[in-house]
């Protein structure tokens, strides 16, 4: 047996680390930010970055499952708004916190079920179904609120979104717990293996005895419920359920998941990758502000950094023949 030297081990580590490019870019961004502005490492700033990342990541965890099966969910941003509004309205009517949260999650559950059913049973492309659902939820938001935010909210509801444990906001803990659970299920359970199998080859998965339709529907339910959870937490954080909440999240979340290495064609991806993808999106925004880059230039710089980070990973894959 050939003994691997130091070089061999390094090469193996580089080969195996799927998100090396993103992590390198993240590290450079953090380094530059911390050299030019020491407040990057301040607790307030780190919490700010992690909190805004958590909202994206929380939805991203479930959307990773969707993309691994070869699907797509564009409805998450508007589901987030509608679920937050429903929970906030329940809270304003004096319902117990658990029921308020339940109302929002139930909405997510139903939306996910409808999305999954139409995609699987009616064979309508996921892009069309979830795009349609995005419009439907947007319409529902306007019908229910007439455009006005649901405000103010009772203290118990605020505590959910604004509360902290050991100085760290609840949403960060919740995202972390769901990430661990999501990563474990994806890697070590039969369900996780089925998710990968369906994305790899749907027909083979079916022949292997996997209930393809059932698993596919379940990932859309997870995705919509994660969006609903984010919406409820966002309403609590702002003490107001805003009709515009989650606007544009569908693209940010999908971008974070894909930047994190999840294949757009299914079969590959990881929660860790989505974490790095979400972090990259939010860290760029924060660092550009700390570096005092003019708002006129920020979007241009964001685009270049994203392409550069993903390009580095592609280069590494090519170099080591990873396809």
């Amino acid at each position, binding site marked *: 047996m050939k003994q691997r030297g130091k070089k061999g081990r390094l090469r193996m580590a580089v080969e195996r680390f799927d998100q090396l490019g993103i992590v390198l870019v993240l590290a450079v961004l953090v380094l530059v930010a911390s050299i030019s502005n020491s407040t*990057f490492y301040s607790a307030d700033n780190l919490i700010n970055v992690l909190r805004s990342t958590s909202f994206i990541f929380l939805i991203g965890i479930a959307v990773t499952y969707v993309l691994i099966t070869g699907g797509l969910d564009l409805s998450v941003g508007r589901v987030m708004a509608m679920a937050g509004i429903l929970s906030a309205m329940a809270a304003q009517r004096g319902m117990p916190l658990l029921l308020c949260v339940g109302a929002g999650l139930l909405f997510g559950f139903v939306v996910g079920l409808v999305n999954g059913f139409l995609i699987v049973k009616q064979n309508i492309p996921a892009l069309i179904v979830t795009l349609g659902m995005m419009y439907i939820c*947007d319409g529902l938001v306007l019908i229910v609120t007439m455009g006005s*935010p649901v405000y*103010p909210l009772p203290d118990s509801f605020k505590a959910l979104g604004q509360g902290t444990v050991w100085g760290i906001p609840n949403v960060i803990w919740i995202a972390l717990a769901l990430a661990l659970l999501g990563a474990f299920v994806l890697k070590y359970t039969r369900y996780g293996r089925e998710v990968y199998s369906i994305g790899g080859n749907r027909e083979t998965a079916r022949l292997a005895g996997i209930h393809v339709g059932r698993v596919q529907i379940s990932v859309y339910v997870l995705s919509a419920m994660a969006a609903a959870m984010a919406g409820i937490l966002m309403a609590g954080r*702002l003490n107001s359920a805003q009709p515009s909440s989650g606007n544009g999240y569908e693209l940010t979340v999908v971008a974070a998941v894909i930047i994190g290495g999840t294949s757009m064609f299914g079969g590959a991806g990881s929660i860790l990758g989505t974490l790095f993808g979400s972090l990259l999106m939010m860290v760029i925004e924060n660092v550009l502000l700390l570096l005092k880059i003019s708002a006129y230039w920020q979007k241009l710089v964001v685009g270049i950094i994203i392409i550069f980070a993903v390009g580095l990973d592609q280069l590494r894959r090519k170099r080591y023949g990873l396809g």
Partner: protein
Amino acid sequence: MKKKQIVAGFLTAVMALGMVGCGSRSAEEAKQPEAGTEAPAKEAEEAAEQDEPLEITFVTPLLGNPVWLAAKQGAEDAAAGSGITVNWVGPGDIDMDEQVRQIELAIAEGVDGIICCPLSPSIFETVYQKAQERGIVVINTAVDTAEDTRTAFIGTDYVNFGEQAARNLAEKLGGKGEVACLVTSLDTENQMAELEAGKALWEKEYPDIKIVVTETSNSDTAQAANKTSAILDTYPELDAIWCLESTSPLGVAQTLTERGMLDQICVLGIDDTEDVLDLIGQDKIWGTMTQNFYKMGYEAVKMIETVKNGGTTESVQDSGTTLVTKDNLEAYKNGM
């Protein structure tokens, strides 16, 4: 078979909901485009038209914003009792193409007047031209286009507004300090014009006041909160935050509360939404520059009615602005 029926039923319900959400009018309500050229007697037609109640389409830039709902209320109150119909249409998110499409639809329907807020004026000028050629009265609210492209404008005069806001903030800061500004986006012409007017005033009359950063919020409270946090870290000497759009003050106040900096940063907001007025009452922000959106909607309908009845109207009307702080909060609320 039963499954198919259920699906068909569901899809029908979804389509019905979608149609409600679109906010557009049904085909029965829609009028045919005016033929115009084949009318046998123009005078008789005009007389008949005068007898018909007016139909006005209000193309809002944002269905989901309380300040525009105040304008809608104003328009409806002005129309009440006179038989005037006000169609309320527009996009759910900022989408100027959708606004232009709604105007084209209104022209095709042959409405008597169009009220609109043309966020980026140049985009609207061609379609306005078309409306005026068909004899439709076009009233701009809040944002104006070139004088020859519309009938009249009612709204806040940007320069007045920007200067008044800047002067109020400068006096509050004692003529010295660092200010961060939050706008919806860098191409929102009215906000940028107000900001430029305020900046020019400071350079001339209060040279010790500096704008250290101008950031965008996309009219999203969560983004305003996140950016405020980064701004506070980047500019530790900051004295004030000037919000030029109405969803930002809540996000700014939330971040200041979380960081225990409410007494260090002076916040000037815009408009009189419930949350903004509450924040003033709770000492979380210093004040707000209110714009009278109700008056904009109300007067716009009255202007169309006047012009359609053969009268004339002023080309530009300033709907006015008021600074509301804790000192005059109750008086302002009572007068609302």
